[in-house]
């Protein structure tokens, strides 16, 4: 069966550690904020210019001047700061952001990521993703294991235009938690009820399975 998008976010939230500054991409990554333990201190950055981003506002409290990089209405927590784009990318390029969580259309076994453009399809641009993947110390990709056509998104080599080269270390999908090491995917955990064979079948790139693979705990 595999995880739904909330469960993927829930599993990724376990990777967020006390004291981290975290940038969340659009989609499943945005949901991660809802599952981070309340006893740890984490600050969320959105590259359009806020550090200390809070949850979505209560109905009726939306502010047109307070949005995240995905244009969604947000709130600012006590201690938050606003800044312009140049400062935001100084933060990112200066490697002050500890963890970047983002979605992807393809990830290759050497850590390449493609997440911005399908040739022939109109997009507004890659946004902050290129800088984020090139600069973050830790990058976690949140995505489904296969696309809507059923094709694997974990590949030997990306076919789409790249966002970043050799930068992805960890991937959490609806089926598994994987790590990229020595130019191959390593299977770390299975989603509850999902077999190693199912993960193997959904992975086009080289997948190393060593020992017994535990089920992830949510």
């Amino acid at each position, binding site marked *: 069966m595999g995880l739904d998008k909330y469960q993927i976010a829930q599993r990724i939230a376990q990777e967020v550690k006390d004291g981290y500054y975290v940038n969340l991409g659009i989609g499943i990554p945005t949901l991660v904020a809802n599952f981070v333990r309340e006893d740890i201190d984490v600050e969320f950055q959105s590259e359009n*210019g*806020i550090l200390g981003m809070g949850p979505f*506002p*209560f109905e009726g409290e939306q502010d047109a001047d*307070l*949005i995240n990089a995905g*244009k969604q209405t947000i709130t600012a927590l006590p201690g938050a700061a*606003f800044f*312009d*784009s140049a400062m935001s990318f100084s933060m990112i390029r200066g490697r002050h952001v500890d963890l970047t969580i983002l979605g992807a259309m393809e990830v290759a076994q050497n850590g390449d990521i493609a997440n911005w453009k399908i040739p022939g399809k109109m997009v507004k641009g890659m946004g902050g993703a290129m800088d984020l993947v090139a600069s973050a110390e830790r990058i976690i990709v949140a995505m489904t294991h296969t696309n809507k056509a059923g094709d694997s998104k974990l590949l030997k080599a990306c076919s789409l235009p790249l966002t970043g080269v050799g930068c992805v270390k960890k991937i959490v999908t609806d089926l598994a938690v994987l790590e990229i090491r020595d130019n191959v995917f390593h299977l770390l955990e299975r989603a509850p009820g999902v077999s190693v064979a199912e993960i193997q079948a959904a992975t086009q790139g080289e997948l190393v399975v060593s020992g017994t693979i535990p089920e992830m705990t949510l």
Partner: protein
Amino acid sequence: MHVLEHAFKADFSFVKAWKGDTAGNLIFKGTARNFNPNMCGAATITVAEVEELVPAGTLDPNQIHIPGIFVQRIFQGAHYEKRIEQQTTRTRNHGPR
């Protein structure tokens, strides 16, 4: 390896700020700061629209985001309709799930 993109110069920058004074000093609000301060000074003529235009000397110099030297025209807009592209909210009892 590096990529150097040379800055390009525009004839006009159009920016929107929250408050401004008659000397052209600007204060932005929330995440609406974004690219606005960076575009001031990127053009020969920066035109700033503000929600509230006050006499020079009224704003606290400590709070100014963009000094007036980067702003050549300023005016107070009217009939603001603040549209939101993606309304995302949570309910009071449970999370966004």
